[in-house]
Every structure is written in C-alpha cells, then in structure tokens.
C-alpha cells in the first residue's frame, strides 16, 4: 500500500463484491418473505451486510489512522456525505409531496370539486373531503360494507389546554434539544475538550433513544385507538412519514452511538480530524429538520 501520488487509491478490495452480495440477499430475502416464504435468506443477507459494513468502516478508519488520507481525500468523504444527505432529502420529498397532493388535490376532487363531480356522484356519493380523513370514500359510499375503514382517532391536538400532554410536542422538544447537544459536543471537540465531547455526545444518544421510546409509545397508543397503517390515507401518510423518520432516527442514533463508543473506548477523534463524527452529526441535524417538517405538516396542520 503505497500512496498513489498525493491521493490514496486503495488496492484491490473484497468489500464491494460482498456488499453487493449482501444487499442482493437482503432484498431477495425480503421479497421472498413478503411472497409467503421464510426469513432465512433475509437474515443471511443481513448478516453478510453487517459483517461487510463493520469491516468496511474499520478499514477506512485504520487507513485514516495510518495517515493515508490526504486533505484532498478527506474532502471526497465530505462531498460524499453531503450528497448522500441530499438524496435522503429527496426521498422524504416524495412522501411529503404525496401528502400535499392528497390533501390539496385528491381529496377535494373525490368529494366532487372541480370538473370531477361525476366521480363523486357515481363512485363515492356522500364523500366529503376532510383532514384528518376519518371517513374514507369507501365508508361514505358503502357504509358497513366498506373494506377501507378510517381511523378511530387521529393524532392532531384536540384542545389548547391539552398541549402539555400532547406527545408530539415533547418529541419535538427532545429532538430539537438533541440537535443542540450534538452541536455542544462538536464545539467541545473543536476546543480539544474530549471529556465535554463524550458527555454531550452521550446526552445526545440518550435523547435519541428517548425520542424512539416516545415514538413507540405513540404508535402503541395509535394502534389501541384503531389508527393503523391501513386505516385509509390518513393512516397511510401518518405512519409512512413518521415511520421512515423513525427509521432514520434509529440509524442516526446508532451512528452517534458508534461515534461515542469510538471516542470513549478507542480515544478516536482529534479536534482537526473528526469527520466521522461530523458526518454523523450532519445526519442528525438532517433528521431533526425532517422532524420539524413532520411536526408542522403532519401534526399541527394535521
């Protein structure tokens, strides 16, 4: 392994081909499971992916420790993470866009607005647009024979007094606070204060876990009042948006936890060389911003 000029070009590597194999087994296994098969292939794929990711990251970290990464190469990782987060933004944009379209176009048209009054009269007579959608077009037109039934309750706030017992508000507070604490951790690291870094980062991870617990609490409550994934398009958008966000919080918490363990157990990160942590913190700020969007468009305007 000699450096290729100034820019380190790694030697041959087994990681990519096994990562491809792992990814393939995972999705092939997932599709098999969904079509009535077992979990075996999926689990096998997950194990391969886990092993590959572990060795891939440890390779990159040890290369950096060995001093192979020039400043120019580090910049490639910075660009890479930035554009990866942009791709995640666009993934959420698809679901926010769907929510926007359904509320502003699909539901009014189903209730007979615009040029489409015959659709309402013939297919969904009696349906009226509302949000949160409690009475689905199916229920309006077919009564008890309806197959797609709306939720028993929604997650919007009912009265102004109940605001302090409104879970989404607490979730917002928790997540916004965690964005501040991760910033404190970063500042501490920049000031060469490793102890402060470990403490603030630890607090951030704890807040991330707290958010996930509260989110699980909310889901359990939702299912107990018949707000489920299949309760019409309100349930659909509610669970898909908050669910994908929750999945990203889980990943972000895991990333920060790994950074915390690296710092506490291995003493990694120096004030001028800490992009692994910075990348994870960018990701954390990103999930935070997505939550603000959710809080506004799913809960407050819900």
């Amino acid at each position: 392994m000699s450096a290729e000029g100034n820019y380190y070009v790694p030697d041959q590597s087994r990681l990519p081909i096994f990562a491809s194999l792992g990814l393939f087994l995972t999705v092939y296994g997932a599709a098999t499971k969904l079509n009535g098969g077992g979990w075996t292939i999926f689990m096998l794929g997950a194990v391969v992916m886990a092993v590959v990711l572990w060795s891939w990251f440890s390779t990159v970290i040890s290369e950096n420790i060995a001093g192979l990464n020039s400043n120019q190469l580090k910049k490639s990782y910075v660009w890479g993470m930035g554009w990866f987060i942009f791709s995640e933004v666009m993934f959420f944009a698809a679901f926010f866009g769907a929510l926007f379209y359904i509320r502003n176009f699909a539901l009014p048209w189903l209730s007979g607005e615009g040029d489409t009054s015959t659709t309402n009269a013939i297919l969904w007579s009696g349906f009226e647009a509302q949000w949160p959608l409690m009475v689905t077009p199916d229920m309006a037109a077919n009564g008890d024979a309806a197959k797609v039934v709306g939720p028993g309750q929604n997650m919007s706030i009912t009265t102004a007094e109940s605001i302090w017992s409104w879970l989404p508000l607490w979730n917002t507070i928790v997540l916004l606070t965690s964005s501040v604490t991760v910033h404190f951790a970063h500042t501490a690291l920049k000031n060469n204060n490793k102890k402060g870094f470990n403490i603030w980062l630890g607090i951030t991870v704890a807040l991330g876990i707290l958010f996930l617990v509260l989110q699980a609490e909310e889901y359990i409550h939702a299912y107990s009042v018949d707000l489920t994934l299949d309760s019409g398009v309100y349930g659909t958008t509610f669970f898909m948006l908050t669910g994908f966000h929750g999945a990203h919080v889980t990943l972000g918490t895991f990333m920060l936890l790994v950074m915390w363990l690296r710092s506490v157990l291995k003493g990694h990160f120096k004030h001028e060389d800490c992009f692994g942590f910075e990348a994870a913190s960018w990701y954390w700020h990103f999930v935070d911003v997505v939550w603000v969007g959710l809080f506004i468009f799913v809960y407050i305007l819900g």
Partner: protein
Amino acid sequence: MAHGPAKGFTRWLYTTNHKDIGSMYLWFSFAMFLLGGVFALVIRAELFEPGLQIVEPGFFNQMTTMHGLVMVFGAVMPAFVGLANWMIPMMVGAPDMALPRMNNWSFWILPFAFAMMVATLFMEGGGPNFGWTFYAPLSTTYAPPSVTFFIFAVHIMGASSIMGSINIIATILNMRAPGMTLMKMPLFVWTWLITAYLLIAVMPVLAGVVTMMLMDIHFGTSFFDAAGGGDPVLFQHVFWFFGHPEVYIMILPAFGIVSAIIPTFARKPLFGYSSMVYATASIAFLSFIVWAHHMFTVGMPIAGELFFMYATMLIAVPTGVKVFNWVTTMFRGAMTFETPMLFSIAFVILFTIGGFSGLMLAIAPADFQYHDTYFVVAHFHYVLVPGAIFSITAGVYYWLPKWCGNMYNETMGKTQFWMAFIGLNLTFFPMHFVGLAGMQRRVPDYNQFFADFNMISSCGAFLFGAAQIMLLYNVISTIRGGKKATDEVWENPEGLEWTVASPAPYHTFSTPPAVK
C-alpha cells in the same frame, strides 16, 4: 499499489481501478443492450403481421415492459456511467475516481439487480407486464406476484446509481488537476456533473414511489387507492417527477460526447462553449417542472395543462442553442467523416427530428390525439436511439483506440453506421404515420390497415439488430489486434486523455498534470 492489473478473474471482482470498472460497466451494458434488443425483436416479430402469431398477449406485455426497463436501466444508464468511469478521471487529470471501492460496489450491484429482475420472467404469474412506467393500479392491485422482486430490484439499482453519481460529483469537484477551472472542463465532464446531480435528486423519488407500491400491495396502505382517499394519479405524478429528469439523464452525457467528437473531425474548436454549459444547466432545471406533460389525458385542471405545456416548450430554447452550436462548429470546418463523426452527425439530425415530434406532443390539445399511440413510440425512440445509443456508439469508436491501443476497422465501422442508420429509420419513421393514424402502443394485434408500415418497421428492426452484432465483432477484433494507434489517435484532438499513451496505462495522472 501494484503498477499493473492483478492476475486472474478476481481482478474484476476486487478491482478499484476506474478503467477496469468502466470496462465492466460497458460490457454489462452491452449484454443488457443485446438482451433488451432480443425482447424488442420478439415484439417486432409479433407485429410483423396483424393477428396473433408468435407469443401470447400476456407475454407480449412482459416483453414491452422488460424491453423498456432493461434498455433504460440496464443498457443506456450503465453505458454512460462506464464512459464516465473511463474518461472523467483522465479528462480532469485525476489518478482515479474519488471513492474507488464504492465505485466497484456501484457496479457490482447491477448484475445482481438485473439477474433478479430478469428472473421474474420465470416466476409464477410471469414477469412485470404493466409497461416500463408501471402505472398503479396495474402494477399494484392487478400485478403478478413477481412485482415484489421487481420493486426491490429497482431499489438496489437506484442505490447503485446514487453511489455512482456521488462518486462522479466528488471526482469532478475535488479531483481536478491544478489549473483545470470549471469553465475549462471538457463538456462531457460538465454534462456528467449535471447528470449526476439530476440522478441524486430523482433516484430517491423513484425509490419512494416503488416503496409506496410495496406498501399498497403488502401492507394495506391507500396511496393509490381511491377507496381509502388515495389516488392512482398520484402514482403518475411521483413517477414522472422522477421520469422526466430521467430522460435527460439519458441524453445530457450524449450531448457531452458529441460536443467532444464534432470539433475533432471539423477541426475547429467547439462553437459557444459557455452557452453549451448554460444550456445544459437550463435543461436540467426545466426537467423538474415539466413532468405532467406525460399525463395530459389523465384529467388535470386547465391551469395544469397550460403550465406544463408552456414549460415543456421552453426546453426547445436551450436545446436549440445546442443544435445551433454543433452545426456552427461544423460550418466551414475541414470535415472528415470517420465512424464517430458519422454517428455524431446522425445524432444531430435525428435527435432534432425527435425534438420536433416532442414539440408536437407538448401541445396539450394535440396530445389528446397522439397520447399512447405509436407516434409517442416514434418520438421517444428518435431521441433515445440516435440520441443515447448513437452517441454511446460514437464515443466507443472515438475512445476505443485510446482504451486498447489499436485502431478499429474503419470500413466495418462505416458499414455498421449505415446499417444502423438505415435500420433505425426504417424501424421508427413509419411509426409516426401509424401513430397519427391511430395505432395504439403496447397492443400485440392491430388493424390490417397498418400492415404495410408495420412490416417495414419489423424488417428495419432486424437490420438494426444485425448492425449491433457487427459492432460487437468490430470491438472484439480491435481489442485483439489491428493497426497500432498513436497517442493522439486523431488529428490534434483536444483534451488531457490524448496526452497519455495508447493504450492508456493502468494508472494515469498519479501526479496531476499542469493545465494551462
């Protein structure tokens, strides 16, 4: 770092070299091109005469679907990524791609993804049969069970595209040789930078829409189900928000290739370099606000029809700038007509025909008549075949001597060009007429009224297919031997790639070159 390639087949499995990975992309793409071509020939064989002869209608639907999917995601996109891998590091004076291991991961996902997608043809209920645009509810409520495998195949090829694009952007923004300012970059690099941005912006949206399908199919959600308050038209909006930038993803790198080739064989610098850059950026911007012109007949408010109609027509302006610049570059140039130049000139002429039929389709009231007819098929094959396929072929002939150090057989190249050119026009030009006369796309049988033109189309398709076999033969025999190419290959071409030896050494620009 070893100085040459590793021995044995694991060289290809474990490689981190941009040239190896570029070659793998190109060979994979060619294999998919032949496979998608076979699907197309099944379609054309069935349509040779009216009536049902060769395949069942259900299988015919699988053929139209798989032909589209394989050509778009398996042939055209990987071919451009392959060219990017080979050429961008050499054009900007970089030692390799910015993230070489991820580069290999991007490639190796593709064979797995396409193995899974093609395998659906052998699954119970057959493969995807809902058209390459997979509109809900055909692709959800009425889809065969194999649709789940199709969805996950799209997911992982999307991951591959996103990683490939991140790599290309990082390479262009971070790895240029000192002195290579943005406005000194070759246009192929510029067009790929913008294409990569488009890919990162829209592949996640494609992932989103197939995820919505997956949830509707398996978890009872109501995205595309009006009974629950959703809307099948929502599918089309999200899909085309991806789909329209996608068609520019398949043409912008083509613009870059042609902008490299025409100046070389006209022996004049490219006319209007900076206007080319701005035109490319404008096209990319506009691609995000025109998607619903694919859906004029779906039932949109009049304001929507008008907005998408006018926005679409605006695209003719930057595209016109480009065509003007290519023609002006050739004007009073000392032209010669080697194979890459022939393909490039054909590109300019035929792509413009496809552009004009696009303008016709952009007129919303007229589109009510054209929608889902063979006129649409003629239009997008005129932009994709002479657009993407001809430019890729031109690029392969142009850079092949640099890649393998040997000159290709010019006579065979020119023969292949004329076969492809005649085959292409025989296949697709009559489709304009049958389309305007009312022949619908995606139907295995048709009125006798259309018989003659369809027979001509089918003959042309087999001629075009034969031309591709000739390309394969020419490329293989060039790799195996032939007249040695000089380092410059052509007469005074522009670009850093011509300053290195032919064949290009395994590692180029380990120390960055000086760019004036």
